[in-house]
């Protein structure tokens, strides 16, 4: 395989205008009557404008409570929360919520309303006129990758889980709010759909630069999506609030180290994105092109297979030249979606997708799901090896201050895997600070 470095996308330029605003928690406390410990105890953090901040922690640690205080679904017992410098208690609660997107697990769509009616709910509450709302619905469906003509008038029960979740995201974005709150948004879908939805969220965020606060119990999701991660212990006590890279390379304490599984070379894979891989520019063929021309072009390039693209340069299929028939390139007969990864996906995602592919690589897409290139198995594994070596070297350098293996083992026994389950209450006793 030859490499084609000038195809590497240039997405790192952060020139897009930030449309999000800053959120500040100042000494926020939330207590529930009858409970011995506060659900949230003196939480003070600043969520910078235009960033994705992930709240992670074990069940019952107050992360969802903290999230719901931002749009006043719950009121703090004391302390203040400001959005763009304005104390949220000074605003009418319904009006405040209409200007904050809210996305929850499974999309939580209204089953008696069509997709369009669901998305149009907040614009309707804000009394937008009909044509503006209709235009916005089309725009949003496009943005989340659903064809408006096909999906506008469907009811939620006629959609797959992933499609429902996409509509949920579109509904959250409907009135173009500067702040979006997400509560376990991708918890209810299968892993491949989840990876896609995460990729899409990153692509959307690249263009919109909203302030997104997202609660999850999945540390890998947090590392992938977050510009910053807030890891909390019981009572929303801040264990560490930092970038994913810093959390993995220098965990603040043992709780964080155990929670993220820091130090493991495999974890750092989540930090590397597909666009760090040198992409191979596999020959492509657009539907409607002449087969002879395509074959000639591919052979000249040294390829035995081509990527079929639709009119918008979105990949449709990856086919062997020998399987193509007729004079012209036709649409693939099957209707299934092609498995691709976004250039913002992690190396983990790329490897996962390769496992189910018949080719030794995975098709990478850029903005608007356009074809960018192919991440080959060799290139990906080479990058992984390099990253792992680097991580190992860093670790050996740090060995003097790191705890011994025995100590680590003991701690692992004490604090079980954070990614498991989300039943409320089961972690409560365990997470209490000692000596109480």
């Amino acid at each position, binding site marked *: 395989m030859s490499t084609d470095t000038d195809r590497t996308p240039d997405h790192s330029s952060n020139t897009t205008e930030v449309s999000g605003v800053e959120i500040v928690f100042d000494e926020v406390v939330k207590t529930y009557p009858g409970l011995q410990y506060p659900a949230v105890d003196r939480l003070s953090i600043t969520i910078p404008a235009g960033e994705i901040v992930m709240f992670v922690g074990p069940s019952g640690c107050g992360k969802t409570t903290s999230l719901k205080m931002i*749009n006043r*679904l719950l009121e703090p017992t004391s302390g203040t929360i400001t959005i763009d410098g304005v104390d949220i208690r000074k605003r009418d*609660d*319904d*009006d*405040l*919520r*209409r*200007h904050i997107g*809210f996305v*929850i*697990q*499974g999309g*939580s769509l*209204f*089953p*008696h*309303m*069509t997709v369009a009616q669901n998305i149009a*709910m*907040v614009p309707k*509450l804000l009394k937008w006129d009909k044509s503006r709302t209709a235009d916005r619905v089309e725009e949003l469906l496009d943005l989340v990758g659903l064809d408006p003509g096909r999906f506008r008038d469907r*009811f*939620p*029960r006629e959609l797959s889980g992933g499609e429902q979740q996409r509509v949920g995201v579109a*509904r959250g974005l409907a009135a173009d709010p500067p702040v979006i*709150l997400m509560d376990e948004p991708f918890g209810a879908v299968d892993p491949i759909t989840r990876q896609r939805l995460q990729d899409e969220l990153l692509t959307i965020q690249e263009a919109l630069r909203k302030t997104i606060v997202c609660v999850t119990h999945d540390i890998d999701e947090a590392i992938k999506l977050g510009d910053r991660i807030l890891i909390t212990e019981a009572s929303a006590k801040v264990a560490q609030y930092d970038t994913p890279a810093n959390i993995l390379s220098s965990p603040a304490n043992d709780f964080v180290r155990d929670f993220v599984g820091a130090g493991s070379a495999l974890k750092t894979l989540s930090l590397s994105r597909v666009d760090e891989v040198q992409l191979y520019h596999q020959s492509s063929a657009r539907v409607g092109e002449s087969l002879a021309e395509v074959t000639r072009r591919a052979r000249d390039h040294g390829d035995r297979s081509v990527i079929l693209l639709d009119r918008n340069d979105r990949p449709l299929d990856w086919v062997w030249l020998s399987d193509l028939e007729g004079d012209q390139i036709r649409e693939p007969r099957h209707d299934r979606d092609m498995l691709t990864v976004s250039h913002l996906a992690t190396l983990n995602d790329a490897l996962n997708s390769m496992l189910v592919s018949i080719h030794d690589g995975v098709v990478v897409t850029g903005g608007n799901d356009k074809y960018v290139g192919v991440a080959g198995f060799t290139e990906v594994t080479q990058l992984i090896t390099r990253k792992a070596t680097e991580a190992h070297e860093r670790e050996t350098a740090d060995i003097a201050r790191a705890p011994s293996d025995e100590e680590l083992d003991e701690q692992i026994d004490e604090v079980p895997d954070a990614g498991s389950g989300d039943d409320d209450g089961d972690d409560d006793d365990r997470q209490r600070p000692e000596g109480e």
Partner: protein
Amino acid sequence: MWQFVVDRWADISYRSFQHVSLVVQSVLLATVIAVSVALLVTSYAKLKPVANFITSVGLTLPSLALLGLLLPLVGIGTLPAVIVVTFYATLPILRNAVVGLESVSPNLLESARGMGMGQLRTFADVRLPLAWPVIVAGLRVSTQMSMGVAAIAAYALGPGLGGYIFTGLAQIGGANAVNYALVATIGIVILALLLDLGLLVIERLTTSKGIRI
């Protein structure tokens, strides 16, 4: 019997109209009452056992007894008939409305609140439409039952076909006794079936395609 119907056709159709009119108006009134009470009950958890108690006990009360109790208070004629029919019509609708409103997922309600929908709008746009199929099912049961209760209300000289039944009973052994009772009974059954058909159509038209079973 055919001759009986032909001779009294004008009276029979007028009484049929009155009967249906009494039931429809009472059921409409009952629906408004039942949904309002259900809203109250689902908002205050403590009221729920009270509502369940009233619906269970209410249905065991003989309608004739209730009518008897009302007579000294409101006299005879249309008023006691409306009160009795509305009372019984309310019970099945109330029970279904409570079940329907409670079955709306708390996630959806939180979603609605999180989007900035006020209490009233959440009720009108989310809770009521989602509970509607269950409420209409109660409405249909209630309408069928009310057709029978309306016949009994004629005992207090209320309007409708019930009058024929009591005339028939009073004249037992007389020439037209059986005709009176039979015509009224068959008439009520036919009207009940027609009303149910109408409600079925309304149910189809007013239930969102997204939640139709």
